[in-house]
């Protein structure tokens, strides 16, 4: 089937072909660039690693094999600090020694206690970060604060808090306050202030200003306008972001725990490095269940608070 095109038609077709070939060129160039960058990166990563990938691969499977406990119940014994039939006095099987006795007979299993500690670190930091971020966000919103310099200053301040590596704050306070949960709380809180503050002020800037106008007309001062005009509108979104942050903070406080900030992260690192298979699996299982539970709970509560609005993407780390 041959179609003869008019002069303009030919020009359009020629133009289309040019565009298509240029696009193909760009795509090819991009792919080539990615291939080169990837192979270079992989080579570099492999070279600078302590063990080479292909040499270490068999050990990976060995290590997975080492993680298998002697029987399935060992995981539960490790999790609930029950005595093990394989107990030979070594650290590997000394499950009952971690018991935290609350009364003569009632105890909290060690890992459950550590997990609670981690959750509490996350919760306290989220609350602190929420409170301070709440105050700061209004100072950064252009519809509340008219002074440009103040907004600029507060925003830069929050950016620094957010971008500063948590690990450094934790390391600094670990040096000052010695090992424990408090440095972890401080580090996670500081990061949370920055992260929540940024999301909060964006919510505030998108708030409906008509209630504010009404309050202004009735002679309300700035604090009253914010408190009665803006806060009721933004509170559901704030709470939703706070819950999302709680999910992230549970993970963050686990990581900080692994570098000395207490909680489950610390025992996990110890138990993996000493190849205590049942203990490791118990902790991993506990952590997995906790994270899923916190995520589900937070998703359910967020759903109740703000309905269908999705916040999963753009977590603003």
């Amino acid at each position, binding site marked *: 089937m041959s179609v003869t095109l008019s002069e303009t038609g030919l020009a359009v077709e020629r133009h289309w072909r040019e565009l298509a070939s240029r696009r193909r060129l760009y795509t090819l160039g991009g792919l080539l660039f990615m291939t080169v960058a990837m192979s270079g*990166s992989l080579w570099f990563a492999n070279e600078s690693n302590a063990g080479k990938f292909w040499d270490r691969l068999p050990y990976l499977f060995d290590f997975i094999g080492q993680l298998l406990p002697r029987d399935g119940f060992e995981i539960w014994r490790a999790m609930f600090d029950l005595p093990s039939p394989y107990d030979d006095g070594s650290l590997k099987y000394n499950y009952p020694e971690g018991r935290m006795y609350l009364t003569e007979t009632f105890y909290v299993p060690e890992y459950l206690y550590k997990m609670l500690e981690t959750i509490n670190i996350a919760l306290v930091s989220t609350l602190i970060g929420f409170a301070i971020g709440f105050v700061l966000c209004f100072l950064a919103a252009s519809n509340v604060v008219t002074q440009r310099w103040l907004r600029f200053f507060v925003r830069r301040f929050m950016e620094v808090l957010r971008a500063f590596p948590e690990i450094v704050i934790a390391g600094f306070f670990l040096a000052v306050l010695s090992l424990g949960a408090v440095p972890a709380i401080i580090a996670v809180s500081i990061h949370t202030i920055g992260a929540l503050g940024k999301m909060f002020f964006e919510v505030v800037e998108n708030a409906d200003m008509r209630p504010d106008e009404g309050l202004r007309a009735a002679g309300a001062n700035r604090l009253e306008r914010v408190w009665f005009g803006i806060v009721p509108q933004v509170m559901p979104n704030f709470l939703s972001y706070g819950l999302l942050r709680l999910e992230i903070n549970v993970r963050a406080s686990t990581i900080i725990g692994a570098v000395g900030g207490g909680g489950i992260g610390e025992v996990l690192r110890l138990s993996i490095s000493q190849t205590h298979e049942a203990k490791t699996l118990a902790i991993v299982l506990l952590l997995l269940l906790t994270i899923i539970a916190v995520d589900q709970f937070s998703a359910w509560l967020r759903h109740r608070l703000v309905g269908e609005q999705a916040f999963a993407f753009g977590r603003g780390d």
Partner: protein
Amino acid sequence: MAVLSLSEVDEIAARHPQVFAGSLRKRLAGWAIGLGVAIYLVFAWWFFAIGAVFANGNWDIAGAYLADWVTYEARPTIGIEENHLEISFPRFDPVGERGSIDWLTSETAMVERAAAAPAGNAAGSSAGSSAGSFLGTVGGKPAPTGSSAAAAPSPTTGGAAIRQEETVSAAVEIGSRNLIEIVPGVVTVTRGSETLVADIVQNQSVTARGPLPDWAEQKAPGSKIIVRFGFPGRAEIEDDEVKIRHRFWGWANFVFDTNSPFWGKPAGEVFSLIASGERIDPKRSNLALAWDNILNNSEWQHLDVWTKLLQTIVMAFVGTVFASLLAFPLAFAAARNITQSRITNQVAKRLFDFLRSVDMLIWALFFTRAFGPGPLAGISAIFFTDTGTFGKLYSETLENIDDKQREGIRSVGAAPSLVQRYGVVPQVLPVFLSQSLYFWESNTRSATIIGAVGAGGIGLKLWEAMRTNSDWENVAYMVLLILIVVFVFDNISNALRRRLMGGDPAGAQPV
């Protein structure tokens, strides 16, 4: 405008009780939540023993650590011998073990060494008596030490002694208003308008003349005296030496360390040496030597830091790319509207949940054990976690696509794979790329943190520098580099996403 009287207000309230009752309940709920949070915080205070932890913290050290971020200390020690002084610097002192510094001046004279004569004491007391007169005077500068120094060498000694040129007096200026003058036996410290004179009986005692000012501290009579000058430094006067700590702003020896032949030279001289100077090392050019000296700067370890930073960047890059590549086909299997089999959907989705919920930390620890510390562990950790995250995000995107395009392609009789290629991929690819780019930036941050638990990269180096508690300036340097990298990647990622999505993506906000 109608004005309501109080009775009319009450009437309205009586007519619509539900309006007011509702608000009361809401208000009570607010108070209850507030009270709950307050009680919880009290519990947390007790649970973490926050008060005790803060009370036991080393807050003095905290100030010194913070100051270390942007300052450095020179730590000369001035040993007090019988009739002369020994000025020495520690091995890794930022001002080096050689060279002259303008804030430490000293005078030399010929003295008898190994002479068991009370010459030093005599010189000390003579200097002391002259210094004693201005103890009470305000604003008086101590007398120049030259006179007492001249008195120091004692000519009367036995034949076994050697006459040798030695330092007999030293003056250390700490900041513009503080001065420490040392001659054997007497240390005179001036801070602003106040002066402290301490007599030293060698290897026995340190005694201040008159009461100690509040910037000086002595734990027990005769023991060492610590004098503080605030930011510029401090000194410890002991019975055999004076330890001085003089603090300066900046990072010491950032470019060349003290072992480098270029150390201590002004920039112009270094450039002219590199451009046209004699070869310092006959084997290579000055440029190569300078570059090598910079890279292998023993204190700042530029080459190592840059390599580790590159490792972190590579970890985030490779991990994100691999995760995107694997999540792409899996997401098609997980999307309800694309793969009809419910079992396949569920298996893929549960796999994503598993990968995501097993924290990045667990993957990092796990792969560190398997591959040994290094970027491979970090890559694997990011790869595993983000395959889950991307899979979830991608499959949600796929489930929300517009079905009309697919129908159109299908209606012209295209094969199933072509339906996906032309009906689905063009719709979702920009969104996928945008999501991956967003996570690329945030993974650069995560890679730093998991590095600290052993997954390699700058995180590990950062952590090691922090553990020594004395390399805070290196920590500051690495943090600065990380912040720059994150900032640059954030901007690249935002710019690319804006181009991909057209218009204003979620991450691009006005400033």
